[in-house]
C-alpha cells in the first residue's frame, strides 16, 4: 500500500511542471509553439510597419479635423492578425484565444479595438481565432482636444492562448 501511495505522489509531482507553466503568460511549450503575425490592412502608406509579432503604427502629425464638429481627434487603422503554429503539431489547424491589453501608455490617448476600449486588463479580441487565418481588426486612437501638442505613444500587448 505504501509503494502504491508513493507511486501516486510521484506521478502527481511529474505532472506539476506542466501545470505551472500553463499559468505563465509567455512560455513556449516544447513541441507546440504559436506565433502571432501582424499584417497591414490598408493600402501601404508607410504608417504601419510589421515584422512578425512586432508592429508599429506611426500616425505622424495628428491634428483635429477642421471640417469635423466632433470633439477630439480620431485615427482609425485596419490591420490583420494571424496566428501560426511554428513547431509541434504537423497540422496548423485549431483555434486560439487572442487578447489585447495596454502594456504602456503616456495617458494622452485612448485606444479602442473594434469599438471596445482597451485597458491594462486583457480584453478578448477573438475567442475562437482560427490558426493560420488572418483576422482583421480596427484600432481607433482618440486624442482629446485638451491634450497638449507633442508626441504620443502607446504599446498594446497581444497574447495568444491555445484552447
Amino acid at each position, binding site marked *: 500500500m505504501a509503494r502504491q501511495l508513493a507511486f*501516486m505522489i510521484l*506521478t502527481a509531482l*511529474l*505532472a506539476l511542471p506542466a*501545470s505551472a*507553466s*500553463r499559468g505563465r503568460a*509567455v*512560455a*513556449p511549450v516544447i513541441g*507546440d*509553439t*504559436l*506565433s*502571432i*503575425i*501582424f499584417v497591414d490592412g490598408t493600402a501601404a502608406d508607410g504608417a504601419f510597419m510589421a515584422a*512578425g*509579432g*512586432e*508592429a*508599429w*503604427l*506611426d*500616425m*505622424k*502629425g*495628428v*491634428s*483635429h479635423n*477642421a*471640417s469635423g*464638429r466632433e470633439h477630439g481627434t480620431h485615427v482609425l487603422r485596419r*490591420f490583420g492578425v494571424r*496566428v501560426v503554429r511554428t513547431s509541434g503539431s504537423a497540422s496548423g489547424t485549431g483555434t486560439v484565444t487572442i487578447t489585447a491589453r495596454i*502594456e504602456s501608455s503616456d495617458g494622452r*490617448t485612448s*485606444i479602442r479595438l473594434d469599438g471596445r476600449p482597451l485597458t491594462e486588463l486583457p480584453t478578448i479580441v477573438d475567442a475562437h481565432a482560427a490558426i493560420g487565418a488572418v483576422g482583421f481588426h480596427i*484600432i481607433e*486612437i482618440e*486624442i482629446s*482636444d*485638451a*491634450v*497638449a*501638442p*507633442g*508626441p*504620443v*505613444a*502607446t*504599446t*498594446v*500587448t*497581444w*497574447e*495568444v*492562448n*491555445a*484552447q
Partner: protein
Amino acid sequence: MRKVFAVCFTVALFAFAATASAANSSGTLTVTGTVESSISLTVESAGGTTSGTGTAAASSDIGNISKFGSAPTGFTLARGASNWTLSSTVGVQVVKANLTSTDYTLTAQLGSAPASGIAWKLNGSTLSDSAATTLTSTGTYASTGSYSWDIVVADSAAAAAIDNSINFTAASN
C-alpha cells in the same frame, strides 16, 4: 488496488492535458504620433437665404434689392437721403484643439473690390479687398461671435450685381 490505479490514471491524464494546451505567444503593437495644435472657423449664421452654415464656406443669397423694395430675409432696410443700408449679422465661431491659447484675433477682408457706390461693413468698419480689418482681438473659443453686417448702397450706384465674398481669418493669440 483497483481504486488506486483509477486515481493514478486520472492524474496522468491531467498532466497530459496541461502539456497539450499550454501553447501561447505574444506580440506588441506600438502606436506613436505627434499631436499638432489647430483651430477651426465656421460661419454659423448670416442674413439672407444662407447655405453652408456650420462650415467654413457659407453663402448668402439676398436676391434682388432696391431702395424702395422690401428687405431680404434676415435683413433690415434703412433709407437715407442719398443712400440706403441693408443690415444683418454674421455669426462666426472659432474652436481650438490641442492649443493652450486663450483667445484669438479675427479679421475680415473682401474677396474682390466692391462695386462702385457699394460699401461692405462689419462691426461698423468698412471692408476692403486690399487689407484685412480686425473684428476682434479677444475672440472667445467655442462661442459664436455676432458681428453686425451692413451693405451700404449709394443712390448713385449702378443697377448691377453686387456679388462679393468676405474672407474671415482667425489666428490664435
